[in-house]
Each structure stands twice: as C-alpha cells, then as structure tokens.
C-alpha cells in the first residue's frame, strides 16, 4: 500500500536542484505542512461557523446571515474581525497571568493534535508511531486551561464552569480512549495511517463502522462531550452559568476559546471519519476503478487524482459529521449535570469496556475480519 504522492521527497529534490544541502531543504520544508494545516484548520472554522449560523437559522425557520457576501459567507470573517479589534479587558480582581494563559492552554493542544490527521497516504504532518494516542494525551491537557481560566476570572460562574468542564472531560475521556483502544486492537497499530489502510480493503464495506457500531456511537457521544457541544455544553450553560468559564473574557481571548472549540469540533469529526469511516478512502476502492479503466495506479496523473479524491473524501465525511453535530445542537435539550455524569460513568464506560472485551474475543475467533 506504499503508493501515493510523497511531496516532501519531491520538494527536497527540487530544492537540491538549486544546490541546497538536504538539511537546509528539510528545514525549509518543515514549516510548510504545519502552516498549511493551520490555515486549513482556520478556514475549516470559518466554514463551520457559517454552517452553524445557516443551519441553526434553518432549524428555527429564520434566514440567517445574508448581507455579508453571497448567502452570508463573509459573516464569520466579519465576526472574527470584530473580535480582533475589540478591547482586551482583564477584570480588575482577576489573576492576569493565569487569565491570559488559560485560553492559550485550551487552544494549543487542539492545534497540536492536527499533527496526526491524515488526508492521504503521505498527506499528514508527521506519521508518529504513537499516532492516535498522541491525540488522547493532548486532549487531556485542555481541562487544565479551562480550570485555569475559570479560577483566574475570579467569578463564581466562571469557577463553576471550569470545574464542570474538567469533570466532564475527565469522565468522558475514559470511554473515548476505550473505544479507540478497540480500533487499535483491530489494527495492531496506533498510527492513523495504518488505521485507515486497515479499512481500505473493500471500500465502504470494510469501514470500521460496520465492525465497531457500538464503539462508533460511544466515540461520537464522547467526542461531542469533549467538545462541549450541546447536549453536553454544561460548562457554558447560558441559563445557569451566564457563559461558564468564558464569562469574563472579551476580544481576542474570547476568540481563542471560540476558535479552540470549533477547531476541536472539526478535529473530532475528522477523527471519527478516520477511525470509523475509512478516512480518505473512497466508498469504492480507487484501485478497482483504476483497474476497471485499465489505468496504472502508479501513473503520476492518477496519483494526483487519488490524492485529491482522498482530501475531498476526508473533508466531506468530516463535514457530514459536523452537520450532524450542528443539527444535534439546535434540536436537542441540554442534559443535567447528574444525567451527564451518570451517562458517562454508568452507561458509556461499561458499554465501552464490554465492546473492548467483545472485540478482543472476535479478534481471536475471526482474525480475518477483525485484524490478525
């Protein structure tokens, strides 16, 4: 399965053509994919914000933004600019250092996690061996930032929101990690590339969603809870807590929270599509189509074509999930804090444990279907 474009290699060869050493070529290469992914994440957020506004409007039989650009597509940019030029306020009795560090600690781990999101065989920043485990570890840093901003705001609603956020993300991390573990068990690898390749045998039929339906649902619920989306947005429940840990924030610091939550949502959707929906795989295997059309799979043109199909498929699947998340947000009521913790500890945790056990058993019984 080692086909696909290797942009890094070609880029380095290209620079070496100008007489640069391979080290310098590597250093010039390094920031490029990071910048690209950062830009992709921010553009993804703009699209998601626009979708959120439009879909919520449709769900409530409104029109939504329509004057800023065609169909209001420039509305998220206007939102962003507004937040950018707003005054940056630190409350007089707040703890300045922690107040500033909080939003950064919330945003940075989320962006770092994009390191492992593959859009194609070689289209990711780094195929680290620990792959998906890196994301689990990084997402566990976020509650510290939330607690920090909740504490530093010197406001009881903020503190309560921060505590709730931490409690929620601690309790939903465990079923999340367990359902990822079931996938890892089937793949024999933590790497996201291997996880996608393991699902690419027979197109849509070999996607993990058919082999891990319970894991898929548990993962999706937990991912929504980790993103603090409705029905799990207790940390910022407007009716009870004003805006939770964000209450005292304004301007760019608030924008960091905002950006962080949307990047996290897109990241979760991307990871669901990678873990359960075949990642960059087309519903019909590309090799089959190439064979049908009598085209060699390694021809440069075909490779560019498959790579672009891969990116389109990954983004399409992710945005389908984002759409479901937005619909859920505008159609479901919020759960209570005790229901939330009950769901996490008494329902999702035992179910994901049983799922892991059954997966291990099935792996032993049917190694050809559940990974040998």
């Amino acid at each position, binding site marked *: 399965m080692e086909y696909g474009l290797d942009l890094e290699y070609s880029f380095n060869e290209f620079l070496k053509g100008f007489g640069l050493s391979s080290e310098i070529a590597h250093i010039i290469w390094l920031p490029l994919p990071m910048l690209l992914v950062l830009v992709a994440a921010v553009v993804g957020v703009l699209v998601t914000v626009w979708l959120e506004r439009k879909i919520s409007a449709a769900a409530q039989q409104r029109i939504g933004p329509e004057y800023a650009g065609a169909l209001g597509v420039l509305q998220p940019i206007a939102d962003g600019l507004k937040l950018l030029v707003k005054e940056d306020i630190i409350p007089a009795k707040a703890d300045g250092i922690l107040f500033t560090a909080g939003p950064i600690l919330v945003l940075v781990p989320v962006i770092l996690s994009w390191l492992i999101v593959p859009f194609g065989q070689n289209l990711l920043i780094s195929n680290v061996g620990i792959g998906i485990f*890196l994301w689990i570890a990084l997402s566990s840093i976020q509650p510290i930032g939330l607690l*920090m901003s909740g504490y530093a705001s010197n406001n009881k609603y903020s503190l309560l929101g921060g505590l709730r956020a931490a409690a929620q993300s601690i309790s939903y991390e465990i079923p999340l990690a367990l359902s990822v573990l079931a996938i890892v068990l089937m793949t024999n690898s933590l790497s996201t590339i291997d996880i996608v390749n393991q699902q690419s045998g027979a197109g849509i039929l070999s996607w993990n969603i058919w082999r891990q339906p319970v894991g898929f649902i548990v993962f999706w619920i937990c991912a929504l809870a980790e993103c603090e989306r409705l029905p799990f947005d207790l940390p910022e429940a407007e009716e009870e807590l004003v805006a939770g840990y964000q209450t005292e924030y304004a301007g760019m610091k608030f924008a960091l929270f905002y950006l962080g939550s949307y990047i996290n949502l897109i990241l979760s959707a991307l990871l669901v599509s990678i873990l359960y929906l075949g990642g960059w795989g087309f519903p019909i295997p590309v090799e089959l189509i190439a064979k049908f059309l009598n085209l060699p799979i390694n021809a440069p043109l075909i490779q560019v074509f498959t790579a672009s199909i891969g990116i389109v498929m990954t983004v399409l699947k992710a945005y389908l999930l984002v759409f479901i998340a937005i619909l859920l947000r505008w159609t479901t009521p919020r759960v209570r804090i005790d229901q939330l913790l009950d769901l996490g500890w008494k329902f999702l945790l035992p179910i994901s444990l049983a799922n892991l056990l059954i997966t291990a058993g099935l792996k032993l019984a049917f190694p050809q279907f559940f990974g040998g």
Partner: protein
Amino acid sequence: MSIAITTQIICFSVLSLVILIGALGVVLLESIVYSAFLLGGVFMSVAGLYLLLNASFVAAAQVLVYVGAVNVLIIFAIMLVNKKEDLKPISDIKSRRIISTSICLTLLSLLIRVDMTNVWSLSSPQNSIGEESTIRIGEHLFSDYLLPFEVASVLLLMAMIGAIVLARRDVMSKDISTGLPVDQELIEKSSEPLLTNKN
C-alpha cells in the same frame, strides 16, 4: 547532522531550565494554585525530555497520566476547597526545616551516587528502538513485569475503596474516625455537625 544536534541541545537546555525553575516554584511559591499549575508545567517538560530521548510513548503516557489525570485532580481538589485562610505558625519550624533539608540532601546524594556509578551509554546507538518501544513496553508488561503491573492495579483499587469510604461516611453505621454510631436521618447534612452534635 549538526543542525539536529544543535536543536537537541537547545531543546534540552530549555526543558531543563523550565523543569528546574518550575520545580523550585512549586516548592517556594506561597500560592498553592500557582504551585499546582507549575507542577503541570514541570510534568509537561519531563514529557518533553522523554520525547528528546525518542521515547514518544512514554512521553504521551506521562502527559496523559501526570498532566491529564494527576495534575487536573490536584487542581480540581484545590479549587473545590479553595479557602483563603492564614496558616497557623508552626512552633518548632526551625528543627523541622533542618530535618527536611537533611533528608532531601541525603536523597540528592543518593541520586548523584546512582548517576556517577551507573553506565549510561548504550553499547551502540543502533540498539535504541525508537518507535518500536510501544511494542516492547507491552511485551514487558505482560511477561516479566506482569506481577508488579497487577500489584499496582490492586494498590489503585485499595486507594479507590479508601476514597469511597472517606467520602461516604454517612452510609456506615459507625463513624470510622470516632467510632460513634451515625445518625442515619442526618445523611443529607455534612458529616461535620454530625460528629460534634453527638458529644
């Protein structure tokens, strides 16, 4: 590979500085909240050191366990009981400080001795396993380190039962700290007036 080595040295010195300053801050700062957050920073930097040593799995586990679980719980507990109170002055503070300093110095000398006597260099750089370490750790956990691994889980279970017993004193017929019978009607109230009213 000179650029790689330079990067490594820069990363190592920055991480070590952060660890040293952060650890000193954890001990010396007055505010317990700052200490807790700095502790998180120290844990993160230690994970960075593991990354420099090519032990990415250990680094991620360090972040997950120490930052994501231990440190979050510490901060959580601090914020739940965040009372601003002046601590009582301790009478024999001087002798306590001398004792704790001597214990710390003894530990330090032990560590330095281990550092001096141990042979750190690998027989050959090819022996480092890098990304394969995840598999190696798994193999060890299920073969020669199986017993310690399981014993650690028993320890965690004991800690959990202890925490539940402490948190739910009210469901026992006798209070575990005083041995007095507990009034079951007062379950809704906190255990503090429950104990004082009995006398």
